[in-house]
């Protein structure tokens, strides 16, 4: 990570886990220390995995357009930590975080980025088309908005089969401009589908700020008119996102239909690719600073006893290195693989 980013992540006082833990409980969060550690580990794993992707990228070993979630991890982690293993997520082309947070195989993800046959999609998906059905991560898509209704279909199947599964459907603020989003809200509410809609609102679609795309920012209010309860988490707090997810997952499992979370978060890196882009003029580093300052990876990390944190950090490094190794040492697909899986048997 570049020095200027790292600087902003360092917050003045190191606080004790005790005080923060009390605060946390006071705010109504349901997490014990184990839970906090789990959340931290996941935030950190995503952060480090993507930083590793960014490190590797200039080597051209990853010939796949990468859309990093660095800085945005709290949405995926907050939601997925509230889900059961048999629950399902549907993410976007900016999907590394969702994939990892839901427990997607990290080795298979790195291998996929490398285009290796051991990749989660055998090298035929790439970064924008991650999938891990064994861990209930639906395939992601490079066409904005497309996976929203797909998630609904999975929820419909679960409902018809009385499976009490919940589907968390992630999408960006840009995706909400596609008509399919509203069609989906209406259908999910009409059929009381077990869905948690998760808007990852980072304020940009590529380089275009929201003000050039949204007539107003009254999104939660709008979604409420479908009879869907909503929660706005304006600072992207992973614990607040988790709380809302727990609530909506329970509600969905009871058969009362979908919930909606708007998580305001911030994309630290460029839209696609590994770098920073505050020098490009479309957004200022000033805008970034408060987000860097409240970085949830750091914030949650500071809630943990330092030895626990250090141990988790080591585990994370090991996981990431193992995944990179796995990718590096895996084979590319054979040429005949080109013609496999066009049609299913």
């Amino acid at each position, binding site marked *: 990570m570049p020095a200027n980013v790292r600087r902003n992540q360092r917050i003045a006082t190191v606080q004790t886990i005790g005080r923060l833990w009390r605060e946390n409980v006071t705010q109504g969060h349901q997490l014990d220390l184990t839970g906090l550690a789990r959340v931290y580990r996941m935030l950190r794993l995503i952060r480090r995995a993507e930083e590793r992707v960014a490190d590797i990228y200039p080597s051209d070993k990853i010939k796949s357009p990468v859309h990093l979630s660095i800085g945005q991890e709290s949405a995926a982690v907050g939601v997925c930590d509230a889900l059961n293993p048999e629950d399902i997520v549907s993410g976007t082309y900016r999907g590394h975080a969702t994939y990892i947070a839901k427990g997607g195989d990290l080795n298979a993800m790195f291998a996929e980025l490398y285009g290796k046959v051991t*990749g*989660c*999609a*055998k*090298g*035929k*998906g790439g970064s924008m*088309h991650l*999938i*891990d*059905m064994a861990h209930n991560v*639906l*395939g992601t*898509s490079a*066409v904005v908005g*497309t*996976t*929203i*209704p*797909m*998630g*609904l*279909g*999975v*929820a*419909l*199947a*679960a409902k*018809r089969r009385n499976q009490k599964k919940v589907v968390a459907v992630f999408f960006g603020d840009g995706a909400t401009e596609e*008509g*399919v989003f509203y*069609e*989906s809200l*209406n*259908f999910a509410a*009409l059929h009381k589908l077990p869905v948690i809609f998760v808007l990852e609102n980072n304020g940009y679609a590529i380089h275009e700020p929201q003000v050039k795309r949204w007539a107003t920012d009254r999104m939660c209010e709008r979604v409420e008119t479908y009879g869907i309860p909503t929660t706005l988490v304006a600072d992207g707090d992973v614990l607040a996102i988790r709380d809302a997810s727990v609530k909506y997952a329970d509600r969905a499992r009871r058969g009362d239909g979908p919930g909606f979370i708007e998580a305001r978060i911030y994309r630290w890196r460029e839209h696609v690719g590994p770098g920073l882009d505050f020098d490009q003029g479309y957004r200022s580093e000033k805008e970034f600073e408060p987000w860097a300052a409240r970085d949830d990876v750091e914030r949650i990390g500071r809630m943990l006893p330092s030895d626990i944190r250090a141990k988790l950090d080591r585990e994370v490094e090991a996981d990431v290195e193992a995944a990179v190794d796995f990718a590096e040492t895996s084979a590319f697909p054979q040429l005949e693989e080109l013609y*496999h*899986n*066009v*049609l*299913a*048997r």
Partner: protein
Amino acid sequence: MSSPANPDKPQSGRVLKYVDALREAVAQEMRLDPSVFVFGLDVDDHKGIQGSTKGLVDEFGPDRVFTTPLSEDAMTGVAIGAAVAGMRPIHVHIRMDFLMLSMNQLVNIAAKSHYMYGGQVTVPMVVRGIIGKSWGQGAQHSQGLYSFFMHVPGLKVVAPSNAFDAKGCMIQAIRDNNPVIFVEHRLLYNTDAYVPEEVYTVPFGKARVLTKGNDITVVGISNMVQEALRAADLAREVGIHAEVIDPISLSPLDIDTIADSVARTGRLLVIDNDWVMCGAGSEIAASIAERLSGTQKIQIQRMGFAPTSCPPTPELEAAFYPNPRTIGEMMHKMVRPTDARWSPDEARTKLAYQLQFRGPF
């Protein structure tokens, strides 16, 4: 009529209408497989998609047979998601034209999921689309457009031309583990054929030779099979013997059967239910040309919609479509290029509409 009526082969099944064959296929599969469900605008109303879904909601209930909001884009995504989760949705559109709202989901997701997710998922779904015709349907309720789906790897496309194939293809489509675009022609709904009561499938990728002949190979698509058969009947009266072939499934496409026939007849006429340019007929013509035109002189000709939008006013509407007269004329022109132009007489052309191909198959 031109049916290969074979007295030795018993005419199995009852005479059933296309529309009823479709409904029977779906009902039978729904009884056998609880993962099959039917949805789409108006599938549960009293008209039941011109009868083809009528009564299904009564037998299977609103969880398995339900209408939707007017949201073709999202509903297609819902079908894909349900299919990925192991259900077998049948998504119904009363006009092919409305599929234009589903193109993103069909082309960018349904067709590609099995491949781009490395085989982790399958998308067993059926998309039913009806081609409208007549009574001034006009430009937006009359399109074929199935060549779009043929173009994209990962989709299957079938267009049965008679009640027997309608039932067998529908059951096959429901059981297929890929997205199948099921093309129906509105004017076929009332045509009937001998249809077995039992459950059976018609395999995809196998064309059916409906009449034998050595003068010209005529490939018809969907309703144009019926028109081609009528034309062939008329042409036989002047001694032209056409081999009429119904590809049934358009993707996969059984080029072998067509090529074998053309290798013999030396002439190929394709009658499409759609525009000619980049249509199914182009594919068939081009494939045959690739296979055969370097080895022998073959004549190839395509017919289809006029290269215009479909006008509703009756005479222009009639001129927009190929019909037994224009098809018959073309057959004659191809087989006897140096003869004076021949046209089936008007009265006989009209009579031809009473003929109908009932199998057996």
